[in-house]
């Protein structure tokens, strides 16, 4: 056990010092069909299955059930674990754009040349082979909602991607998931540029939505009208095809987000939301989903009133939420959403709610619940294998299955 942990450490952690910077993804050759057998299988589509079997074929879940009901065909390879869960979903990150080295040439999460740039696609910036993608996968995370970071009023688009670590085009699930907006201090442009105040930021956002509305009408009337890439995207927001992902922490900024959403009848998902606990009834009434800041986020600046109890408080108020690793400008360069969930459990979030927030609820929030997030026959074979309670500090992730491909990254 110790020896293999150590070996994995060298495989993923230390390789950078000894080998070329970007080792190829650790994918085993895909077996066409195999079985995963576990003492407990959390399907998240019903009660946990004791002594469960998941049959995987051609990238999908073929059958799932109790071992007594689902026979493993003779000769089929079997991968055993104590606990199996759906592959975990990090409901908001910047991994793949904010690279591991944190030097200028690997930081593509924030373009500062203008305050409003909804035309920036995550797909064109996502670096699938950044070591942090494989790092997250080694902790059971098989899907990430990632993209442009907070820090500009409209910083760009986000995407949903599986953590194979191959390429954006091969691994993408949803190329345009949300449009990232930052309100409050984090959205200030600085250097005397607009927006310089909260009120100016909201005015500029409203202006942008208004112009996009006019643009959409013009394009509808005249197919030859010149294309504006940014307004094309904002028009999708106005058609409710794509939500705004509004990063805001102070209560008055969260209220501003709800105000704009109501005025323009657009969908918003609130990100960070450190003071959301001061306005739970409003959030519940608005039917808005929240991605609470990482539980261990530093409570400085706009997060000074943050609490590690936020996920529990959202749950008890009936506000839909999923958990995230967020954006980090320094260390840890990427948080691990599994760990953030663990600390939320340590602060009162029930474990089953935490697991839902990392699987079925996150899938729904990211619009991928038809494909992943629960273990059901016909869905993508996205699994995480554990040697115990996934949330305990001392449990190991043994590996993952993504689209039927085994990644034996563990035990880690």
């Amino acid at each position, binding site marked *: *056990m*110790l020896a293999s*942990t*150590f070996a994995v*450490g060298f495989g993923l*952690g*230390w390789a*950078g*010092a000894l080998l070329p910077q970007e080792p190829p993804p650790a994918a085993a050759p895909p077996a066409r069909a195999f079985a995963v057998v576990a003492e407990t299988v959390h399907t998240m589509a019903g009660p946990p299955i004791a002594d469960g079997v998941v049959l995987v074929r051609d990238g999908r879940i073929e059958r799932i059930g109790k071992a007594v009901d689902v026979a493993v065909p003779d000769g089929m390879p079997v991968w055993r674990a104590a606990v199996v869960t759906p592959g975990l979903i990090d409901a908001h990150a910047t991994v793949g754009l*904010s*690279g*591991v*080295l*944190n*030097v*200028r040439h*690997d*930081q593509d999460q924030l373009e500062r040349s203008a305050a409003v740039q909804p035309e920036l696609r995550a797909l064109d910036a996502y670096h699938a082979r950044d*070591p*942090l993608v494989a*790092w997250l996968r080694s902790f059971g995370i098989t899907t990430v909602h990632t993209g442009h970071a907070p820090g500009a009023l409209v910083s760009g688009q986000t995407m949903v991607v599986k953590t194979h670590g191959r390429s954006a085009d091969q691994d993408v699930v949803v190329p345009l998931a949300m449009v990232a907006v930052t309100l409050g201090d984090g959205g200030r442009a600085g250097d005397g540029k607009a927006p310089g105040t909260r009120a100016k930021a909201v005015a500029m956002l409203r202006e942008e939505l208004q112009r996009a509305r006019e643009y959409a009408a013009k394009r509808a009337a005249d197919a030859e009208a010149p294309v504006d890439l940014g307004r094309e995207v904002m028009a999708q927001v106005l058609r409710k095809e794509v939500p705004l992902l509004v990063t805001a922490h102070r209560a008055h900024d969260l209220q501003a987000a709800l105000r704009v959403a109501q005025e323009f009848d657009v969908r918003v998902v609130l990100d960070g939301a450190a*003071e959301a*606990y*001061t306005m739970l009834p409003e959030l519940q009434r608005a039917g808005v989903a929240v991605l609470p800041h990482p539980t*261990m986020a*530093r*409570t*400085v600046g706009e*997060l*000074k*009133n*943050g*609490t*590690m*109890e936020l996920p529990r408080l959202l749950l008890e108020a009936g506000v839909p939420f999923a958990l995230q690793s967020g954006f*980090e*400008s*320094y*260390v*840890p*360069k*990427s*948080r*691990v959403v599994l*760990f953030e969930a*663990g*600390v939320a*459990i*340590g*602060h009162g979030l029930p474990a089953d709610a935490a697991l839902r927030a990392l699987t079925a609820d996150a899938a729904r929030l990211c619009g991928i619940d038809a494909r992943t997030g629960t273990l059901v026959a016909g869905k993508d074979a996205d699994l995480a294998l554990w040697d115990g309670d996934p*949330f*305990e*500090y*001392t*449990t*190991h992730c043994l590996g993952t299955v993504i689209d039927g491909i085994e990644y034996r990254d563990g035990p*880690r």
Partner: protein
Amino acid sequence: MVGCSRLLLALFVLPAMAAAQEVRVFRGARIVPIDGPPIDDGVLVVRGRVIEALGARDAVAVPAGAEVVDVTGRTLIPGLVCSHSHIGAVAGADGSGPIQPEVRALDSIDPRDPGIQKAQAGGITTANVMPGSGHLLSGQTVYLKLRDGRTVDDLLIRTADGGIAGGLKMANGTNPQRDPPFAGTRGKAAALVRAQFHRAREYQRKVAAANGDPTKLPERSLGLEALVEVLEQKRVVHHHTHRADDILTVLRLREEFGFRCVLHHVSEGALVAAEIAAAGVPCSVIVIDSPGGKLEARNLSLETGAVLDRAGVLVGFHTDDGITDSRLFLRSGALAVRAGMDRDQALAALTLANARMLDLQDRIGSLAPGKDADFVVLSGDPFAVRTQVLQTWIEGSKVFDLDDPRDRLMAYGGYGASEGQAMSMCCFGQGGQ
């Protein structure tokens, strides 16, 4: 007049003495002394500020008149010792130069900084509070007992000779690299440090040669005085260092000048574990949730503690607060266990090993008769994700109680919990932004 002042003294001192001799007995917990086997259903007897006795329920008599505290089902461990922290709004050297040994961290500490209360909430009772790593030598560190105090003096630890306990903070690698007069390269950094230690040796020789004659003493240098304490092994160097070659540079300088030192962070320590072990130098290791964030931490690994421990190195962990949160310090040990470290060693790495690195192992770091009554009451296994720090005691006084609403706010967060809290993170945002 003399009699009157003696009476006044007695009036002030006697009540304090009486309070100091209060006897409390904590009964029923699983006691983990660190320097001995765990005791189930144990008894801990605290007289005044020190531990009087501990053992199994039937082996330790409850002194007459003692207040009995029922801690049945709880786990009792020594107060945690953080060997590297930046709480208390600490600051050290300024931008005027790379080497400033005369600067003392203690002159910057705000005892009301919420970071101190949050550290209490994490079970931390002693911390090495240090200036940052943006200098080759950023000043004198201060070892604080996190007592509830009004001034920094209330938090100081006095050494046997009446001095203030603390070390000296040094750094190499990229953090202290800047434009002149700072070093721009590793070679220059080492040369500046060596030249400074030669000046300290010269100062030391002149002071010795004067043999107490004030006319022959060199002009007093506050900075060189501190470095002479380092040369005489009275003050420990706490050296920030990440990359394997930088770690070896510290060992080389230590060999040349004979100082005692603790290596801090040691992101690539596993690559040079044998060399560190051969030098007999302790390591204060940081546990971070992912590698990277800066070039020299690209190979940071959760296995570092386990690898160094197996190589025979004295291993401690630290929060580097605000890099990691003091309230979650136990988690650093737990993640090291996840990565293969022995559980007992991981718990020692949060307590007694760190006490050793601060030369305080005779007073803190384990539960033993005669030691300071610094301990933590936990709801369960120290390394379980649901375990709560319920109470923190320092020298027989309770400084944190999760049942107290104000303390709970500090422990979990919420409106006002971090008001005015200073954030000290060297080089935050220098990396990629």
